[in-house]
């Protein structure tokens, strides 16, 4: 299998990791979009044959290391996310933007739910449904980011 311009995928992941640890004012921390989850959905939907659950798992593990959360928390969440995303990639592609947005909300919501589960295992206080805010912001970010990512991916002919 020949690969072409795969570095761009790693580059987007790198940017997502930077954004994931970027300092934010305290009250905005709850609304930080789950950038890595967004990218995992995007890349698994675009290249379902090449990128799978293993890819998402590795991204999650690196995110765990970088953000300093419990090792495996993001790995688990992103692997499950990638699994669902791979099950439904044909439908996701056919959705109109509004439907896509809602579907991304559901997927990232599952991701956040798993993250929250690990949080409560770790004995951190879990404040209501606030953990779902990132799902909303990520869904709102989806229509802004994906056209650009699609354009770049076609131009670079990533295989």
């Amino acid at each position, binding site marked *: 299998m020949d690969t072409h311009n795969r570095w761009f995928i790693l580059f987007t992941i790198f940017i997502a990791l930077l954004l994931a640890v970027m300092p934010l004012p305290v009250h905005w921390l709850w609304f930080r979009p789950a950038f890595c989850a967004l990218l995992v959905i995007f890349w698994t939907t675009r290249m379902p044959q090449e990128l799978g*659950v293993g890819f998402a798992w590795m991204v999650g593990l690196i995110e765990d290391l970088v953000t300093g959360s419990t090792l495996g928390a993001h790995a688990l969440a992103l692997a499950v996310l990638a699994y669902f995303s791979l099950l439904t990639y044909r439908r996701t592609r056919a959705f109109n933007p509004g439907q896509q947005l809602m579907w991304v909300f559901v997927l990232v919501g599952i991701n956040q739910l798993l993250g929250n589960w690990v949080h409560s295992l770790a004995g*951190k206080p879990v404040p209501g449904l606030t953990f779902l805010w990132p799902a909303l912001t990520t869904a709102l970010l989806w229509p802004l980011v994906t056209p650009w990512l699609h354009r770049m991916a076609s131009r670079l002919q990533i295989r």
Partner: protein
Amino acid sequence: MLGLVATALILTNLYTDWLDPARERLSSLAAPFYWITDTPSRVGGWAGEQLRTREELLEENSRLQHQVMLLEQQAQLLAAARAENTQLKELMNSAESVDQRVLVAQVIGVSPDPLEHVLIIDKGRSDGVLQGAAIMDASGLLGQVIEAGDFSSRVVLITDANHALPVQVLRNSVRAVAEGTGDLYRLKLRHLANTSDIREGDLLLSSGLGGRFPAGYPVGEVTSVKRDPGRAFADVEVQPRGRMNRSRFVLAVIDVVPPTGDGLEGRVDPAAQD
């Protein structure tokens, strides 16, 4: 399959400390990310310093010189007091106090998780900062190192909801445990009897019990005491002295010999017993 591996990893990480060495090793991988995201504020700070006028610098210089003079004068008084203190301690045959070395570190990042109060500083094991080192700023205690990497470490603040430290009231040495609340400006005193002598405005110092924090550093000030006769314990709120989310430079206390046991019994010199 990978899900199972991840779950196993989570459980190992949460309930054992087998993974801690690996984490500390790999945290050097994470440091560059924090360093890069910190760049804008560093550039901003640099530009702010470069673009200052001569007058401003002169003014600041004279202000700092005044401050140095005042501090030096206080240090002289302290030197005398310290000598006296050592003498008295020798007379009482108690454990000698250890001279502490402090190191200035820069905060390069904050944990992205809003549920924990964790800072990332730019000093690590190669500079002598080890796990458990106390971190403070100019006005008070901030927290302790929970993970020391080679060139950076993670510091949990005393306001983190999972953190508690032993404290002592300066006025009358009443001991208590100050617990983080998850709020950057609030600590709580746990299990303090309704009848204990504590009031608003009392200054709390670290007591050094437990052996993690050096004794005698300011922790916070009591802001409110509520005594409800129906409840066993008083409801005491404390405002931390350290500037939790505003300190850019912090001090790491290194080279502290941890006291043996619970720190309550003084070390007995065998020579003094005969």
